């Protein structure tokens, strides 16, 4: 009886190990396939030149530039708001008040909204309400009321707000309360404490959140499809009202709409590889910082 039970047990335990190994396998297959097919085309030229001849030659620099510009604008919008929300929730708010609960509810739900709904929102609110309103107010033809960098960045900022808030809150929580109390004992005000004592200590965690949101912002395509991304632009975006090329959007369009799939395949795989390297690298850095912080916290530093 015990023997049979043990066999049963080992079987199920083995299944769980199998499940874990399957996840590893999935990762290896996907990343392996992309690296194998894409690494040949990666070169300095590929990263720094523009596409030519209907996307069958040349590089993808404009897409990289557009992605970077988009993400920079997004971070400028989301980081202050997210960090301040986390500061309010952790340092100032009474923990069970209705307001606190509402804010947490809102943050949690923003996290679950599908990315295409953000795209719809960007279109319906930013472009057609705010943008069109701005055009009307300034008496312009169509400058703000169309897809562009700014609206795409703001849409992504809203999408990533929960990421920043959650990571920042975790960072603030990691700062031991003794430090705050010591600061108060020395006569500092609340804000002084936050600004000079708590925040610097929480910086790695906040950075984690920022990096994770950058990684997500660079990878999401659905929110920017109708709020600013374009397939072939002969110039780099230089004002917030410009459209932009973007790595993820480029992959989507090239994979589904390019006229000669065989000819664009190398560039397609190369673009995917660049996007993958970008997002995974960012994720690695964020995870690394976060695990270092968590280890420090556990050691009671």
């Amino acid at each position, binding site marked *: 009886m015990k023997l049979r039970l043990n066999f049963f047990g*080992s079987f*199920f*335990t083995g*299944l*769980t190990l199998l*499940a*874990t190994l*399957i*996840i*590893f396998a*999935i*990762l290896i297959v*996907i990343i392996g396939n*992309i690296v194998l097919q894409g690494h040949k085309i990666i070169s300095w030229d590929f990263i720094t030149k523009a596409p030519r001849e209907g996307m069958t030659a040349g590089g993808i620099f404009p897409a990289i530039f557009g992605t970077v510009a988009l993400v920079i604008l997004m971070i400028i919008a989301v980081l202050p708001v997210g960090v*301040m*929300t986390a500061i*309010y*929730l952790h340092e*100032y708010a009474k923990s069970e008040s209705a307001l606190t609960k509402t*804010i947490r509810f809102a943050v*949690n*739900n923003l996290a*679950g*909204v599908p*990315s295409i*709904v*953000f795209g*719809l*929102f960007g279109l*319906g*609110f930013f472009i057609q*309400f705010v943008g069109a309103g701005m055009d009307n107010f300034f008496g312009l033809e169509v400058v703000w009321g169309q897809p562009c960098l700014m609206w795409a960045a703001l849409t992504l900022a809203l999408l990533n*707000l929960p990421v920043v*808030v959650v990571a920042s809150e975790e960072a603030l929580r990691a700062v031991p309360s003794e430090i705050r109390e010591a600061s108060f004992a020395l*006569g500092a*005000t609340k*804000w*002084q404490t936050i600004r000079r004592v708590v925040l610097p200590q929480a910086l790695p965690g906040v950075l984690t959140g920022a990096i994770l949101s950058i*990684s997500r912002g660079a*990878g*999401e*395509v*659905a929110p920017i*499809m*109708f709020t600013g991304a374009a397939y072939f632009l002969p110039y780099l975006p230089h004002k917030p009202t410009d459209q932009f090329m973007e790595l*993820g*959007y480029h*992959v*989507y369009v090239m*994979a*589904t709409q390019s006229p000669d799939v065989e000819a664009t395949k190398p560039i*397609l795989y190369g673009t*995917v590889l660049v*996007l*993958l390297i970008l*997002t*995974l690298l960012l*994720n*690695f850095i964020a995870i690394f910082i976060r*695990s270092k912080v968590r280890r420090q916290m556990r050691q009671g530093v």
Partner: protein
Amino acid sequence: MENLKTIEKKHQSEFVISKKRFRLSEFIIEKVIFLSSFFAILGVILIFVFIFREALPVFTSPEVKKEASLNLFFSTVTWQPISDDPRYGLIAIIFGTFKVVVVALFFAIPISVGAAMYTSEFAPLKLKEFIKPIVEILAGIPSVVLGFFALMVMASFFHSIFHSTMRLNAFNAGVALSFAIIPVIYSIAEDALNSVPRSLKEASLALGANRWQTAFRVSLSVAMPGVLAGIILGLGRAVGETMIVLMASGNASMLSANIFDSVRTMSATIAAELGEVVHGSAHYNVLFFIGASLFIFTLIINSLAQLVVGRLQRKLAGKI
């Protein structure tokens, strides 16, 4: 002594003045922080308002209702918005979403819950620190890359094994979708399993159960609400996911029980057609209606998951 006292007095007045100065800027800063925390709430409200605003004509405008009303959505199966006789039958599209999500959950639940169990119950310590980051790497792969992989590699692979009529189908998209939700379910389930108090596990072992009995019958059942919450959130994510299904499912608005047939999902319909609608047309309103439905659905899912997690926390604290 006296010197110290005079020094104190001198600096006290300075300190009082600087305290006053700090108070004003401090006040302003606190107000700014307070106000900025409203952005999250504002965001949700605005999404709500603006998506519903554009979806509302489906309920209120008589012109739009002739083409597309709640009735019409469910009385015809055909989704044919561009036509002299436009029809907006939603049944096939909703069912399409359902098919893909079912396939995705079918693969994702055993894999993620199994891996979570392994990580928290059986894995040696060194391995544990290794597994979690690896799953997070999977989470870091953008969905457009997963969709790309499904379109270029997986579709042909499955086609050569199953010889389905259609190369791009619900099965293909569903499997790719499962890759996207495995990390979601995994991290929440693993957290839940980890929070099971050691005392419970040790008590079970003391009573003579071995490791796997403890894991499956004690830890898992205690952590079940958390695991369920993870599954619910994974479901929400699967329903809303766009790029994977857009690229890998074939986008045919057909109603069929065969998982190897192409499907058209709600999210992919919006993504594929939003670019071409003229603002204010009935088609436009219908797409926003679909978006509103997705939004409400994920709101419900999220609230449900939070409720379930709340139960778990109270259970572990001994209140249930």
